[in-house]
């Protein structure tokens, strides 16, 4: 097998789409942001419990990557996956109901924020074991490869996963078996409270991925158009039989790790500095500069999203809970008697 050296993105291919597409990218990012902001309020009101890991600041990654995927592709995600699920098309109603623990939730109330599943969108969850989703993604990709389909599996994980053995086992296996896998490493610089350079001897994650013989490069994860461009290039190459590809998406989480995190491990000034690169503000400014969006358009987007969220909350409030008698359903499948 030919070993592929690490490459950097040098040839710019045009991102498909026009101003309408760019407005849609903005809309999707705003939708993820506003959904989570409402989730924070609902958490404070004790409507949502458990762990709640916010994606705020990282929206360009999920929205950009999902542009490159078809309905036949698969996604494996992490415990910070509201953005991935929404960008993939999982219904906001079913997401919100899951946050509420209702039976109408996408996991029937058994998963919660960290375990969103939707087979109809080939969204294989919400894995709360760091690195634990990578072997699943390898298996989904293996099935596609054995069947000769054109499916690509996009596997999201954070920089923290790079410290796990499962990461290295899967990078090797994917490259060894030429699996159709797009590794999407969301490098937000912190594994919970541990900074990348306090956990990793080599902090150039794309370079480390390249050492496994797969094409890997770093992307500005705060620029949704750059992310979409990279994802299209990566997914296209994977789909064409080029073996696994690795994107290091350099991003930043504006909020704390979870609702329990007092955020003592990083300077406020660092957070503020990254906020000046807010992916939503950046794209909105770019669209305005090129007269591709008006304030009225922005207001309309906000209003539509607010209505969608309100509807989702009302539906979740009204939804039934799983009867306790059904507690042990889905531990085993029904067996023919």
């Amino acid at each position, binding site marked *: 097998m030919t070993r592929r050296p690490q490459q950097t993105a040098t040839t710019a291919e045009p991102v498909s789409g026009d101003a309408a597409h760019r407005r849609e990218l903005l809309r999707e990012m705003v939708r993820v942001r506003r959904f989570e902001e409402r989730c924070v309020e609902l958490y404070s009101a004790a409507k949502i419990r458990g762990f709640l890991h916010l994606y705020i600041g990282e929206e360009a990654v999920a929205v950009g990557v999902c542009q490159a995927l078809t309905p036949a592709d698969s996604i494996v995600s992490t415990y910070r996956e509201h953005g991935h699920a929404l960008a993939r098309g999982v219904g906001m109603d079913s997401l919100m109901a899951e946050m509420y623990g209702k039976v109408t939730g996408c996991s029937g109330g058994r998963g919660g924020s960290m375990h969103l*599943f939707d087979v109809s969108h080939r969204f294989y969850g919400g894995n709360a074991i760091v690195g634990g989703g990578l*072997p*699943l993604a390898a298996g989904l990709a293996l099935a596609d490869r*054995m069947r000769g389909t054109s499916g690509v599996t996009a596997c999201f994980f954070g920089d923290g996963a790079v410290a796990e053995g499962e990461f290295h086992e899967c990078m090797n296996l994917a490259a060894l078996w030429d699996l159709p896998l797009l590794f999407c490493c969301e490098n937000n610089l912190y594994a919970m409270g541990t900074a990348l350079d306090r956990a990793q001897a080599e902090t150039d994650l794309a370079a480390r991925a390249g050492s496994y013989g797969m094409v890997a490069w770093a992307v500005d994860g705060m620029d949704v158009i750059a992310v979409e461009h990279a994802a299209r290039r990566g997914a296209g190459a994977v789909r064409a039989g080029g073996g696994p590809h690795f994107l290091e998406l350099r991003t930043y989480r504006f909020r704390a790790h979870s609702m329990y995190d007092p955020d003592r491990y990083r300077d406020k000034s660092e957070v503020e500095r990254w906020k000046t690169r807010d992916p939503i503000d950046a794209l909105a400014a770019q669209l305005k500069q090129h007269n591709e969006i008006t304030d009225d358009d922005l207001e309309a987007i906000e209003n539509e999203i607010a209505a969608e969220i309100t509807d989702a909350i009302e539906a979740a409030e009204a939804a039934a809970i799983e009867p306790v008698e059904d507690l042990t359903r889905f531990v085993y*499948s029904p067996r023919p008697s």
Partner: protein
Amino acid sequence: MTARAAASGAGARPATARTTKAAEASAAGSGQQVTYREAMREALREALIRDERVFIMGEDIGRYGGCYAVTLGLLEEFGPGRIRDTPLSESAFVGAGIGAALAGMRPIVEIMTVNFSLLALDQILNNAATLLHMSGGQLNVPLVIRMTTGAGRQVAAQHSHSLEGWYAHIPGLRIVAPATLADARGMLWTALEDPDPVLIFEHGALYNMPGLLDPAAGPADIDTAAVRRPGRDLTIVAYGGTLAKALTAADQLSADGVAAEVIDLRTLRPLDDATILESVRRTHRVVIVDEGWRSGSLSAEVCARITEQAFYDLDAPVERVCTAEVPIPYAQHLEEAALPQPAGIVAAARRAAG
């Protein structure tokens, strides 16, 4: 003997005694002479032939032929696409089996020994056993994992443990332990048809076990325990590698006029309480044999269920014969001393029989 035991009609033949086709074939002197290894290999071959979604992956299963030679020859017959040698990456290839199962394949993953399976425990517990429930019933994991378990071959403390009881603790998994040729031949296909993950524990000391197997032996159920030897005086519960020792002990007891019934658990999760309890209610005395350590073991679970559900049927305390609570040692005499042996089972049976 207590009045209750006398009143229950001791000596009645077990109404639910199950015998296998192989046992029948063996009793009739018919069938083919095979080993447990060959029976397992034939089961794998049949699965690969019958269902194109089936493939096998694991360490050294292909070119090497399998660390216990179970998969010998399959690479040549089915090719590297379906007989996949993996790197030494238990977590990755077990997890890849789960992912492929989610996508509708029927993977069989081989792990060299149960000790190595701990490197994949995250995938087995946090994904295979959990995804169906955590996804609200959306994700089935029709995966079969085979692994070797048990001691008796002087391979010391990192290749000899019996940890199937740990796995039997986990809701969402089905755990089976074929102890006979018919089960080695027949449990795999049934496991592959199960929509949920099934772990097959093959005791390493059984691979060379010879016997007669009906060439037409078909699938075996993975729900029930089996009475391997009927008896009226006491019940010996065993499984996997301890079944033969229990049967040997029963022979010795028989010479002393004690008729021991021997139950092979076969499926360790979910346990077939009914077969155990039916026997205990007839014999009123129980010895449980388990190659796992006593503390927190499968034997403890069986004991608890008997005392919960048949306490007033017991005429003596439940006896257990387990592995000594040490890491399995290398030296032969120490290893033998650490493991359940027929003499220990006989002694326990005599205590139980009063």
